[in-house]
């Protein structure tokens, strides 16, 4: 049963070198998380450790053990194309910080140039 196939992360993990402070800053930027210099110093060390722990998996996994991305040996879980009830607009918008004209109101998307 061919269930799990190689994924991106597996080979990357195996050859993973230390996580640099710049890389952490880059990932924080991608995730839109603002970090101070102190936080960067601290988190870079901690994240590097975490990656190190995970990388030990690579020591056990031989080439004949394919990496997995999902713990369940399942494929093709689908549903038939039948309409099911949706929420009402009132229900959908109930938790929105702001709504207007039955739509979610969100802050300005583009900054002023």
């Amino acid at each position, binding site marked *: 049963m*061919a269930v799990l*196939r190689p*994924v*991106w*992360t597996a080979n990357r993990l195996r050859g993973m070198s230390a996580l640099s402070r710049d890389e952490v800053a*880059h990932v924080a*930027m*991608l995730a*839109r998380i603002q970090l101070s210099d102190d936080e960067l110093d601290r988190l870079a060390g901690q994240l590097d450790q975490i990656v190190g722990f995970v990388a030990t998996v690579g020591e056990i996994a031989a080439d004949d053990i394919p990496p997995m*991305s*999902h713990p*369940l040996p*399942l*494929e*093709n*879980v*689908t*549903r*038939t*194309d*039948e*309409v*099911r*009830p*949706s*929420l*009402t*607009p009132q229900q*959908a*918008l109930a938790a929105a910080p702001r709504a*207007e*004209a*039955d*739509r*979610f*109101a*969100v*802050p*300005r*998307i*583009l900054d*002023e*140039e």
Partner: protein
Amino acid sequence: MTDAVVDYDEALQTYDPVMGLEVHVELNTKTKMFCGCSTVFGAEPNSQVCPVCLGLPGALPVVNASAVESAIRLGLALHGSIADWSRFARKNYFYPDMPKNFQTSQYDEPIVYNGYLDVEVPTESGDGTEVFRVEIERAHMEEDTGKSLHVGGATGRIQGAEYSLVDYNRAGIPLIEIVTKPIVGAGTRAPQIARAYVAALRDLLKALDISDVKMEQGSVRCDANVSLRPVGTEKFGTRTETKNVNSLRSIERAVRYEISRQAAVLDAGGTITQETRHWHEDTGITTAGRPKSDADDYRYFPEPDLVPVAPAAELVEKLGGTLPEPPAQRRKRLQSDWGYSDLEMRDVINAGAVDLIEQTVAEGASPAGARKWWTGELARRANVEGRTVEDFGVTPAHVAELDGLVKGGRLNDSMARQVLEGVMAGEGAPTAVADARGLELVQDDGALEAAVDKVIAANPDVADKVRGGKLNAAGALIGQVMKELKGQADAAKARELILAKLT
């Protein structure tokens, strides 16, 4: 603000365009890609949403089986390979059109890869057509995004807006994105080939019945990548990506414009910035959007909430048995069956009347009659009024019945047009309309002859001209006879009778 451009033909003497086309197709499934919310267009805002498509905590997506089947059928129709194992991935980005902060898409394991689509384009010399093969890199499944209204700006555009309002009804509707390999060798015909490709793809999607292909509603949207390289060189130039070009005509214009614009930049010794560009329908130009940046790292990773799609060979084979006749082949067959000239067939295709005529002929109409009413009358009228032929409420059965009434000699063309008016006004089927309006050619030869005699007697000068050999003059007499019989005479018969009496 407006960029410099060089003359298109001049640009093509120096540069060789390379294109890449990405087409997003909204499928016509009843429900969304990963949840059971309806996909009907035009519903009240946020009335077709649920915890799954709103990305609420704990909600679990489940793949729509019909959407997967549509993707496989499209892949097979594009002569592509179907992956025996394929996964979804999260494309992470910060933009409120997806409430989840990611779009569920496919990354390096698309369901379809390596296909092609043959499109018909004019030959370089312009006399006739030839087939140009567009290679397909991949087609993958993903979900559509929500729709934003931008408030506070002068033009309703995102630039300058104070805030935005989002409707997530569209978020989660199944999409297939079809990506071509670089299209090389198009030369001066690049804009036409881009257009012909999207048109052929649209026809194929329609024949497969997997999308309503309404470009004006955004069911089919095209992103056009264009780059230039000096003629005779191999290495591709830097490309721009013009987003959301939503009509066939615009695709042709946008590609043409980008070629002229990039040529001007290169001619001036500049370099092309890799960026997205916006197409402006009204002015026919593109303007710079966002440049590609580090922030465009979408951090794709396998979607942990969905298990792999691994279509069984038997399923793929079964779906392969459901493919329609390829649209181009079907058109050739129908043209030959119907005996239309190339020009007539082109009019029929442009009028979008191929299916209607096929059904009308199946209802018993003559191909010539079916073409006359659908393209000569209804499509022409729809075009003038800015509507579609479907809006008129006229069915193929109606047209076949009308054609029968004309062929059977009950109605002439002008009466048939009146009957058609009645059908469009909802007065019923053609025979019923003709009955109700009292439309019937005068079948009584005695009445026709009497009218002819009367008109000849009343117009001795004209009658003499006809006697003297000026047969064209008979037209005036025919007109009088028609008037005499309130338009309900058979004009051909009247002419016959007049000539018989005078020559």
